């Protein structure tokens, strides 16, 4: 079976997804799941009243079956108590959709997990756990940084033209790093800006950055610089998903802290 041979029901939910959107306000909980296999992303918003899911909305970045399974599970969960909704399995979703291609079964997992996370978030709100946000934000040693110093890793830039048409990664080091990122967009189409924060501190500069062609990686950290003689790729850590991945770049700029 091909990965895109979908049932009519799947296609119907893909064409006309039910309950798309977001919810806000009292009693609303959010669940978010990213799929390490294919990179899909799902968000569920539930509004619970007297332990019953009164309203539910979703957003999905993913393939046809990801959209269809998310849409279907909102229909299944709506009106159920949170405990009933927790019992919805991926098989239930797939069955309601008249089957999914085997390779796409993980999509229904994703939908079930995202819903569970939303319910979990709701329950945690009910019984607030004393969660400690650990802020172990000490400057970590980046592997390979010394080896590639001057060979793709730079702590100071004297000549911007070095980066003409190169893929540059800039680590957040205050306003100067944002200015540098913006400046470099004139020389190369690929500038990646890395910050450990969830969002940038509001300022005119960071607003400019968000609107520019710079690709911003939030909640991310650089673990390692790799290459043969010069920098060719980096190992990144997505702290939100707790995943590591490689990214091809030609240069890394880590300005010295003032």
């Amino acid at each position, binding site marked *: 079976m091909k*990965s*895109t041979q979908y049932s009519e029901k799947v*296609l119907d939910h*893909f*064409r006309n*997804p039910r309950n*798309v959107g*977001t919810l806000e306000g009292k009693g609303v909980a959010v669940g*978010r799941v990213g799929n390490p*296999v*294919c*990179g*899909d*992303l*799902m*968000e569920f918003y539930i509004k619970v009243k007297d332990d019953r899911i009164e309203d539910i909305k979703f*957003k*999905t*970045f*993913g*393939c*046809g*079956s*990801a*959209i269809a399974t998310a849409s279907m599970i909102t229909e299944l969960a709506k009106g159920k108590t949170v405990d009933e909704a927790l019992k919805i399995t991926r098989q239930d979703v797939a069955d309601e959709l008249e089957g999914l291609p085997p*390779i*796409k079964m*993980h999509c229904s997992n994703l939908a079930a997990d995202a819903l569970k996370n939303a319910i979990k978030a709701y329950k945690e709100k009910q019984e607030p756990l004393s969660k400690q946000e650990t802020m172990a934000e000490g400057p970590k040693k980046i592997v390979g940084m010394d080896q590639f110093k001057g060979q793709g890793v730079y702590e100071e830039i004297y000549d911007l033209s070095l980066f003409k*048409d*190169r*893929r540059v990664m800039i680590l957040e080091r205050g306003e100067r790093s944002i200015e540098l990122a913006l400046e470099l967009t004139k020389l*190369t*189409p*690929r500038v*990646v800006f890395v910050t450990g924060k969830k969002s940038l501190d509001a300022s005119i500069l960071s*607003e400019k950055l*968000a*609107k520019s062609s710079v*690709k911003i*990686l939030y909640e991310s950290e650089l673990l390692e610089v790799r290459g*043969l*003689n010069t920098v*060719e*790729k980096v190992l990144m850590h997505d702290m939100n998903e707790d995943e590591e*991945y*490689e*990214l*091809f*770049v*030609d240069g890394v700029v880590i300005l010295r802290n003032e």
Partner: protein
Amino acid sequence: MSVYLDYQSAKPVDPRVIEAMLPYFHEKFGNPSSLHSVGDTATEILEESRKTIARFIGADHDEVIFTSGATESNNHALIGYALRHKDSGNHIVISEIEHISIHNIAKYLERNGFVVSKIPVDQFGRVSLEKLAERVSETTILVSVGYASDEIGTIQPISDIGKFCRERNIAFHSDIVAAEGLMPIDVNRENIDLLSMSSNDIYGPKGLGILYVRKGTRINPLIIGGGQERGLRSGTENVPAVVGMKRAVEIMQQEMSEETTRFQRYRDRLIEETLTTVPRCYLNGHPTDRLPNNAHFRFDGIEGESLLLSFKEKNIEVSTGSACSSKTLEPSHTLIALGLLHEEAHGSLEITFGRFNEDGDVDSVLEVLPGIVSRLRKLSPLYKEETKS
């Protein structure tokens, strides 16, 4: 009728090719190995076809062997050369953006004692000579770089790579499938020693290809049997398909220049209008050094399979490098090699034009594309930042 914009995946056989093939199924059905006159007829057309096809890439007739397609040719070139020369060295160099068949053959060779290095590409998908030079050593026996990327359409500096290899006495293989019929290719000008080409990619029948082997370049056979194709590729030759490929070459020689000018017009218009009408949309691959029929985009916040499905609903057939549409659920290795993140590789759309497209096909895409993109973005949790700002 749907609008077909995926010529990179498969091409219809030109009706003139089918016509040329037909007599060779029943009337002139002979086996070239037979010594009677029916066999002689087959031998004649086989050798005549070999000459025509060889000339198309600037080769001599005795440098071309027929295979079942470019995948077999790639297997034969890499494995056949590696096995033959394993005493001279065990190191092979390929690029990060080779066709999947080359990547998987390289993995197979690694499991069998060879060492494989991959040359990274720049953000436009071009292999750099410096990075190649950093990788070759005394044990390097073979370099394989595809003529152009089948996905993003970037054309490689093939003659420079060929020259580099020639000077160091390293054999150079190139898979030309993505580029054949879209630009003139010459094995001597480009210093190519081994070359894979398919019949279908010039509107000939599927199931046939050639392997070019430069005189003096030695390879081992992979398919062993009755000793056809100078002992390099046994099995009775597929004469009807060979005749088809010959006809396809003849037509291509006549029409390539007009045809590629036409594709380039479609391509340039599609790229220009898409980039200006759709926000947060980018061109993948090289802005100018790209195949005349290839347009490859990515859109922030949306995923390629749902793009493809949406086009399908509008009767437009396109392609994507998204993981969700692949057999392995891995995103395209080519897009990752460009330096894209997984989520960016996900949102890609590949459109490739071919012989039977018309100006109106570009209109069909442009009519529906902005609507499809904005609908999918409304569903996407990754696009909300942009919509607020």
